[in-house]
């Protein structure tokens, strides 16, 4: 497997883990919520593996060069948009229908879910756009 595909694969796996966890939080699905540490682990692994690949590769540009960096920066705002709109809608819904929120934990769970999805989506989109590129 080429190094360029390894980096994209790591991004894809990490992103999917975050999205699945985020959805798990929205659905209050306990078996997934119990695996929350996996999201953190996946993110840390992403940076560690990428760091190792970067330090060991002869051509540093294979891991991240100006093209992939520019693409990453163009996709990253999607994460901010998802996070901001998600949290704004959540807070709005609380004020709109005050009686529905019985416990602050529910609200925090939803915010954590939004943060997971907001971080995972740009990762998945970035990796898919890299895979989609003509060989």
């Amino acid at each position: 497997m080429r190094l360029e595909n390894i980096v994209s694969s790591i991004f894809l796996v990490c992103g999917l883990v975050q999205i699945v966890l985020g959805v798990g939080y929205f659905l209050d699905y306990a078996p997934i919520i119990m695996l929350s540490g996996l999201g953190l682990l996946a993110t840390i692994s992403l940076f560690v593996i990428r760091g190792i690949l970067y330090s060991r590769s002869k051509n540093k540009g294979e891991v991240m060069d100006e093209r992939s960096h520019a693409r990453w920066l163009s996709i990253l705002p999607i994460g901010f948009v998802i996070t901001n709109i998600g949290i704004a809608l959540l807070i709005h819904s609380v004020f709109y229908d005050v009686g529905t929120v019985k416990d602050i934990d529910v609200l925090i769970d939803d915010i954590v879910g939004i943060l997971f999805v907001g971080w995972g989506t740009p990762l998945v989109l970035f990796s898919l756009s890299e895979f989609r590129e003509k060989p």
Partner: protein
Amino acid sequence: MGKNHKELNNKLEEFRKRASLTQSELAEKVGVSRKSINSIENGVYIPTTVLALKISKELNCSVHDLFQLT
């Protein structure tokens, strides 16, 4: 997107082949990924000035030889 960007023609592939270099070899020489060279050749990505200068240096030509406005 086509072979060339709307306002930019590039002859990178032609010059690279003339220098008998593969995309991977050129990518390694200028410190980018093979995909980046491929994207530039296909007009999908326009390189920065620094990268364009590095590529032209490796291919022993000027930036203007490689990239021209239509």
